């Protein structure tokens, strides 16, 4: 299995999936899920206290994946660390052998399980990409030379269905200017809009991995529409789920359909299955 960067560089379609660290120190379930993904995906993203819920460190879990032979994408948000911690953890990831990093803003603490926490946001996601570029270039963010640089493949996030669209595209371009080389997009369900975004993005030298979020049930689709910003599940998919015997199977089929279509024009796909790693395997098999 090629690592994420070389796969994308050689213009092959890359598939990544997301895996969430445990809420505690027992990593047995996490490792079982990781083993399921091994050999199936090109890299696995490790989420960083996703939805502002405290979990085992994304850095530690990225290392666990690596030891298992999986190329990790170390996710880092701007919410929990100031600029000193961000730089030292990025270098820490690098010396441990991690090569892919995804810079995100991070959900606000008001969504999570530690609502009384101080949200840091010392730097934002564009600035974080710039900081990683500087570490790659051999200096810290202040321009002071480092005793040994990093060499990380820098990723960021973009919302292809953002409304309004223009300010999101301005931010997308700033991330590219700051040094982002690959993008994992937010989940989308309208392939037409996504194609529009992809054509726009084609003018830049970056790799795009389209975001696929597995719909486990019609109920989940309704929940997403109501509660998750920027995600819009169209009615015909909800109908398809509702009228089926096994909604999860139908959700897997829908995701496989999206993956199959992405393979015809995009650089890759990023599958988010929220705890359903065995479904990721099925989606990939079904899209063969």
């Amino acid at each position, binding site marked *: 299995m090629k690592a994420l960067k070389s796969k994308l560089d050689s213009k092959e379609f890359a598939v990544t999936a997301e895996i969430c660290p445990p809420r505690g120190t027992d990593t047995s379930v996490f490792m079982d899920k990781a083993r399921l993904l091994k050999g199936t995906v090109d890299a696995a993203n490790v989420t960083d206290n996703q939805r502002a819920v405290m979990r085992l460190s994304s850095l530690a879990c990225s290392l666990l994946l690596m030891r298992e032979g999986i190329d990790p994408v170390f996710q880092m948000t701007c919410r929990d660390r100031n600029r000193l911690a961000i730089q030292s953890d990025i270098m820490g990831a690098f010396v441990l052998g991690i090569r892919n990093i995804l810079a995100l803003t991070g959900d606000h603490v008001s969504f999570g399980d530690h609502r009384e926490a101080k949200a840091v946001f010392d730097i934002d996601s*564009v600035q974080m990409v710039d900081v990683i570029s500087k570490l790659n270039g051999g200096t810290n963010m202040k321009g002071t030379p480092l005793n040994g640089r990093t060499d990380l493949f820098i990723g960021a996030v973009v919302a292809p269905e953002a409304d*309004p669209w223009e300010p999101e595209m301005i931010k997308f371009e700033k991330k590219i200017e700051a040094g982002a080389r690959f993008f994992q997009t937010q989940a989308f369900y309208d392939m037409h809009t996504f194609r529009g975004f992809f054509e726009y993005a084609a003018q830049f030298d970056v790799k795009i991995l389209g975001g696929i979020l597995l719909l486990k049930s019609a109920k989940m689709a309704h929940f997403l529409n109501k509660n998750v*910003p920027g995600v819009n599940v169209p009615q015909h998919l909800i109908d398809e789920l509702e009228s089926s015997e096994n909604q999860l199977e139908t959700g897997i089929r829908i995701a496989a359909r999206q993956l199959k279509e992405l393979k015809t024009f995009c650089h890759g796909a990023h599958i988010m299955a929220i705890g359903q790693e065995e479904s990721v395997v099925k989606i990939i098999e079904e899209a063969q």
Partner: protein
Amino acid sequence: MIITKKKDFGDILEYLKGREKVFLFGCNSCAEQCRTGGEREVEEMKRLLGEEGKEVTGSSVVDETCYNMLIKREFKRKEAAASSDAILVLACGAGVRTVAENTDDGTPVLPALDTLFLATVERYGRFFEGCSLCGECVLGETAGVCPHTYCPKGLLNGPCGGMDGGRCEVDLENGCAWIDIYRRLKAQGRLHVLKRISPPKDHSKDLTRPRKVVLDRGVRGGA
């Protein structure tokens, strides 16, 4: 204007446990307008403390409680202020601090209010936060909308992924600050400003505490 709100009376009584003689300070500026520390509220506090068996030794509603000279004068005028068991201040934190500056170390100076923010007065009794006093104003690049105040994450380079149809993920009742900034810059023909990468904020400008400004004599027109 500085916005304050009343602390829970139970919490105030807790502060005053074992202290029977209490002097009150109010403020005729911001706290008066917030209805938290004007004449009315000081009288109300007197009554409430009286009902709890406390002796209110006196009170002063100063024009600006954050003004050291005015507080100094009150301490000269009202002997009771310095000889009470405790001083309760119905003003913002700076007012409490100014009173504390003027007492000996042995007298507790206690806040009756929580200090919230620096506000624009929409109209009487309606306040919204205008500025977070960050020490390095970027309103020139953000079309008059403060990203430190209106974006809950204080981002400097555009909307986060949580922006939803122009609304803010943290509270959908609120518009996303960055969409507001984008619209205004666009209307002003200044989108190029948004396209520039903003560097990280220099927190040395607002995190070095306490902050202090001393005008030179020429500017002060001093004696």
